Structures are given as C-alpha cells and as structure tokens.
C-alpha cells in the first residue's frame, strides 16, 4: 500500500499548490489588502491581473446562468470537426505518399514549406473563404492537425516491419489487403501515438480562430471581454479553456487505452 499512500500525499501537495497560487493571486490583487508597494493606485493590480474571486464569480455565473454552454458547444464542435477532417486527410495522404515514392519525392519540398509556414496567418484567408462561422475555424484547425497526423502516418507506413510485410504477402495478401490489414493498422498505431498532440492542436485552431474573429465560442467571449478591458472575464475564459483542454486530454487517454491494448506496457504482472 506504500505506493498508494505516496500518490495520495502527492495529490495533496498538488492541490495545496493550486490553492496557494489562488490565495497568492488574491492577496496581491485585492484592492487595499496589501499596501500598494509597487503600483501607485491600489486598483491597478486588480485591473491588470484580475481578481480571483471575481473570476470565479464570472465562471459561476456562466455555468449556472447557462450562458457558457452554447459557446463551449461551438468550440467543441469546431475542435472535433478539425480533428476528424485533419486526421482522415492526414491518414489518406500519408499512406498515399509513403507508398508512392515518386509522388513523395515531387511533393517533398512543398510539404516541408507548408509545414514550416506559421499556419495561423492563414486565418484571414479562411475568413474570406469560409466566413466568420464554424467553417473557417475548422479549416484552421485542419491545417494544424493534418501535418501532425500526416508525418506520423508517413513514418508509420515507412517503418512497417519488412518481415511482417513479407509474411503477409506469403500468406496470400493482395496489395489492397496489405493496405487494409498491414499498412493501415501500423499507421494507426502512430496516429494514436500522436492523438494527444493532434487533439490539442485542433483545440488551438478552434480557439485562435474564434479569437481572431467570430460570433460564438469561448474564444469569442475572451475577445469580447478584452475589447472592454474586462480582465476578470478574460481570465475566466482562460480557466474554462484550460479545464476544457484537460477534459479533452483525459477522454483521449481513455480512448488510447482502449485502442492500444496490443501494445506492450511496462508492467503487466498482477499481484495475487
């Protein structure tokens, strides 16, 4: 039970740290609580850094007033669409280029160029093409997700064990069956390995897109608050987004656990 106790005390320290950060934040920013040692005006710190109590009040209001759900939903839809479209495109093009060396050689410099480009600057173009709705955010997310998945799939297909491949051929697999039963599963294992990254980037694409111009979404809430110098709401938005990202990450971990049963894990023994 030793390890259990350790993880419990670890958890306690983690919570303590979180509480300490918020208490510190409160003490420094609450007007008049401390003598104004740096800013001349006691309200100055609150103006710049927000006040945790007001931030939590805002979050409380969002969730119990029901205002936030519509925005969270929009952000979630954008994230998931960007993730799925980017993943499917990445898998398809990754497998194709990995199996067609000629095409791969031709496209190689362009893929490197597009990957090197800071893709956030595409956002204005996507706004022009797809408008300020969901589509432009999805497009931005897709450009981010695509390359992660693409490079992983490309690598995955290239690194299929030649023996496994030869074995499948000897067992009578046609080229199509090789694709379905050997290349695709092998590539998928690399896709799953990059799942955390690609979901994270889909989320980044959605939020940044919203922030740059939108009428809905959590990024839009932050944008609005920033426009009226409402720092508390900005911080509230940041906290909600962080929590949201953590939930997404947790769901991905669950999915990963289910999908990757065939991969060796370090500890497989069972205590009797």
């Amino acid at each position: 039970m030793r390890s259990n106790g350790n993880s419990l005390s670890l958890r306690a320290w983690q919570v303590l740290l979180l509480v300490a950060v918020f208490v510190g934040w409160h003490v420094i920013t609450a007007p008049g609580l401390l003598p104004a040692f740096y800013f001349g005006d006691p309200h100055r710190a609150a103006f710049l850094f927000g006040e945790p109590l007001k931030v939590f009040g805002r979050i409380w209001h969002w969730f119990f007033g029901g205002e936030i759900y519509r925005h969270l939903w929009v952000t979630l839809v954008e994230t998931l669409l960007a993730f799925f479209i980017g993943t499917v495109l990445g898998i398809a093009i990754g497998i194709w280029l990995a199996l067609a060396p000629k095409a791969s050689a031709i496209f190689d410099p362009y893929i490197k160029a597009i990957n090197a480009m800071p893709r956030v600057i595409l956002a204005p173009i996507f706004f022009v093409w797809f408008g300020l709705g969901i589509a432009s955010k999805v497009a931005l997310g897709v450009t981010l997700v695509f390359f992660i998945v693409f490079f992983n799939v490309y690598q995955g297909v290239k690194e299929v064990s030649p023996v496994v491949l030869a074995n499948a051929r000897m067992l009578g697999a046609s080229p199509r069956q090789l694709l379905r039963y050997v290349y695709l599963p092998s590539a998928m294992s690399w896709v799953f390995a990059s799942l955390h990254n690609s979901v994270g980037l889909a989320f980044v694409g959605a939020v940044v897109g919203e922030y740059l111009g939108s009428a809905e979404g959590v990024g839009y809430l932050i944008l609005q608050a920033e426009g009226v110098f409402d720092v508390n709401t900005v911080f509230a938005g940041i906290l909600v987004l962080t929590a949201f990202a953590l939930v997404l990450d947790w769901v991905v971990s669950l999915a990963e656990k289910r999908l990757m049963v065939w991969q060796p894990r370090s500890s497989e023994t069972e205590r009797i």
Partner: protein
Amino acid sequence: MSSAPGLGAAAAALALERISCTFVAREDRSQRYTALRDTTLVVAPGEFVSVVGPTGCGKSTLLNVAAGLLNPSAGTVHVFGEPLAGINTRAGYLFQTEALMPWRNALDNIIAGLEFREVAREAALAQGNEWLKRVGLGGFGDRYPHQLSGGMRKRVSLAQTLIVNPQILLMDEPFAALDIQTRQLMENELLELWSADRKSVVFITHDLEEAIALADRVVVLSAGPEAHPIGEYAIDLPRPRDVAEIRLTPQFVQLHTEIWHAMKDEVLKGYAQQRQ
C-alpha cells in the same frame, strides 16, 4: 538425389537452378555483393531438406528466391514444374525474426491467411481454434504477440503458416532464437506436424545437429560471398525421430563427424571474413 539441372526438375516440388544473386548498392552502383553463385537446389515432393552453412553465407537469400520475394540475378525457379512468377503461392514461409502482426491477437494472426483468401469468418475461426490447440496454445487465442513467450510466438507463426496448407514449407532458422529445450520441443512438434501430410520442406539453419536431426538430406553451403553448395548428404536415420534422443545414436554421430569435417573449413573462412 540428382541435382543436375533439368533432370528430375519437372517432378520436383521446388527446383532452383543455377541461381545467382548479386546485390548492388543503391547509392554506388559499383559496390556489388554476390551472395549466391550458381546454386542449384532441387526438392522432391514430401522431402525434408536442410541447408546448412556458416553465418552470412546467403542461406536466407536462397530461401527468399524460393519464396518469390527476391528475383535472382540469374537462374530459374520452378514450382511443381511451373516457372515461378511473383510470390510463390504454394509455399509457406516461417521467418527467422518476428513476423506476427503485433496488433492482432494469436487467433487473429493464425487466421490471417484464411482472411486473405476471404474464407467466411465463422469457418476461419473454427479452423483457427483447431490449429491453436494443435500447436498447444488452446486458451491463448486472445493474447497479443507481446504477451506470449518466444516459443509461443513461434508456435503461432507455425500455425499461421500451416493453416493455409502450403505444399512447400520454407523455414529460415525458425528456432534460432529459442532456448535449447524449447527448441527441441518445437523440432519434435514440427516433425510430428510434418509427418501427418509430408510437405516439401526447405529448412535453413546454421546448426548442423538440428539439420541432421530433422532432414532427409543435408545440403552444405560454402561461406559467402559467392556461396554455393559444396556437399550433399543423405540422412537415412529412421523415422519417426526424437530430436533429443537421435543425437546420441552412433549413426548420427558418424554423419555429424562426416559433414562437420566438410564444413569446418568454410565456417572458419566465414568467421575470418566477418572479423575483417
């Protein structure tokens, strides 16, 4: 046993005639390596042939040519009298290294060949379970390759290869990575499975004892590069054999001494080349 080209090749299960394999480095075409030169190997239906030779002598190359995975630079391959084009569909190949699909469990690995032939899943699973029991792994069907021991994985590979009932079995040092006890068990199991329907077998190994214990005929290859057969020995030990016990018979010892004598110089040559 005639190995003269053309003669008897029509009736042979597998006839490799005057095979040469030269590999050319992709970056520098002047860099060549001739693994095999002028090698002829004819295997009769139902015959168990072992090919022994020092490490790095091109034994696997020979097997890959027989499997249709590698095109020889020169020479012809006939399978049951027909020239081989592409993959040898009448052969099963047991690889030296891990060849199981890691994302499939043991049962799904075993039935892969049936799946490729589009056998109905119910029927495939029934056959797969039967083979699982036959190789002594009943109840391990849902394990993934990484959850199985080396010996178990080899059994799965064996079942995977045999389930599609190939007429020729190509084996590339399949038991080299196993410990000696597991190895002898597997060798006996192989002989038992083989005696049931007498496929033609080409068994590659660097272990002379294993070669003699299993085969009807032992072919000795010279050290590479430019490996070629330097001797052929009929093994007339009685069957059924127990590989652990047969090693102790005087007949075995005599054959071993004879073949080892022929091989020794080549082994030393191969060793010297690898040290360079």
